[in-house]
């Protein structure tokens, strides 16, 4: 603890700081130079403590010197920032509303969703890339990683796979995406088949239909796809 002795104050530096902070002493009444000139420091600990306290005092004094912020026109950035804050707070309130509703809904039970039920008219829609990706991911997790032993040197190219799929599709007309991937022998084949299917969609050779009810993705040949290549 470092004691200071000055015209206006005598006692520990920290107490002085606290009093300035709480507004018990007007910071203008304290001369920093007087205090800074004073110290007879005995060791490093005391010295560092003194520097921290002095810096804090300086900070408080400089704050008192700065002009008080007036309520004047906001700059465009401030308007934006305020607006952002306002929207953000509103969002938070809305999130709170949702949470309350969520809690309430936890006690309301619906009929268990039955994925096997298919409506009289099956609803097919164009499969999105995301649908394919999700299906692809599920297949990858389903297939165990290849054992090291089964790694073959002969790779398979996307082009080969495309031809394979074309043959397959000519034979069966349409097939289910996930099932087809699962039939592949290795991971490499699965990935190549996936890339081949993407490429074929891009080339307009095949169409992808997603059945929302059963979550099946069917691949079929496009009508005008025959004359390509």
């Amino acid at each position: 603890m470092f004691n200071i002795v000055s015209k206006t104050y005598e006692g520990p530096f920290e107490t002085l700081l606290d009093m300035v902070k709480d507004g018990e002493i007007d910071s203008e009444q304290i001369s920093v130079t007087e205090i800074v000139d004073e110290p007879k420091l005995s060791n490093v600990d005391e010295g560092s403590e003194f520097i921290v306290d002095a810096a804090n005092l300086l900070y408080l004094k400089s704050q008192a010197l700065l002009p008080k912020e007036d309520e004047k026109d906001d700059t465009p950035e401030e308007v934006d920032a305020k607006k952002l804050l306002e929207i953000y707070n509103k969002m938070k309130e809305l999130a709170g509303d949702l949470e309350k509703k969520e809690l309430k809904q936890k006690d309301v039970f619906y009929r268990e969703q039955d994925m096997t039920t298919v409506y009289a008219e099956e609803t097919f829609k164009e499969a999105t890339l995301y649908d394919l990706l999700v299906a692809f991911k599920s297949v990858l997790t389903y297939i165990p990683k290849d054992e090291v032993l089964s790694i073959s040197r002969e790779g398979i190219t996307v082009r080969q796979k495309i031809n394979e799929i074309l043959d397959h599709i000519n034979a069966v007309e349409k097939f289910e995406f996930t099932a087809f991937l699962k039939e592949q022998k290795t991971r490499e084949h699965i990935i190549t088949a996936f890339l081949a299917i993407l490429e074929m969609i891009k080339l307009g050779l095949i169409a992808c239909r997603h059945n929302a009810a059963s979550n099946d993705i069917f691949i079929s040949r496009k009508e005008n796809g025959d004359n390509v290549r």
Partner: protein
Amino acid sequence: MEITFAKAVIECLLFVSDEPLEISRLKLVLEDMSEAEIRKAVTELQLDYETAGRPLCITEVAEGFSIVTREQYASFIKKLFKTRVTHRLSKAALETLAIVACKQPLTKLEIESLRGVSADGVLDTLYERELIRIVGRKEVIGRPLLYGTTKEFLQYFGLKDLMELPRLEEINEVLGNGTWQTKNGMNGENTGVQGSFEQPK
């Protein structure tokens, strides 16, 4: 069709359906009734359940109608189906959903610029739980995905439609002539990165 009979049919349809049935879908079955007549029948049915003090009620949710259990029996149902209790959403997920609900369709970047943190993980979770969906791509550089809420979202929170969220309008009012929409809007001038929602430097 006589109204009592129509009500019975509707009750059957609601009973067997595992998702909210819209009036339009009921209409596909009850061909000779108008949508207004069907709505009237559903409302009467609702009232019947109410006055009879049944443990079930017919609720209007996700733009349709569903038969659900009343809250006071929840503890017993939870006892039977221990696995049906799902995890509640995190604060971050709720906030993100609130933003998506208000400003849909919007991109991940627009969500992030508002929340100030990455939305990757949260969006994955919400997508997995089918509370949001991809509604398209924004025609700006990089063609980022646009997100919107789903029917499951409405059902999860027991909402009839998005209009039921009272603060939605307030937020849209603030946003109304907001710089956010125009600067990051669909006009393709901006990738959304330099939106006005960026923190001031």
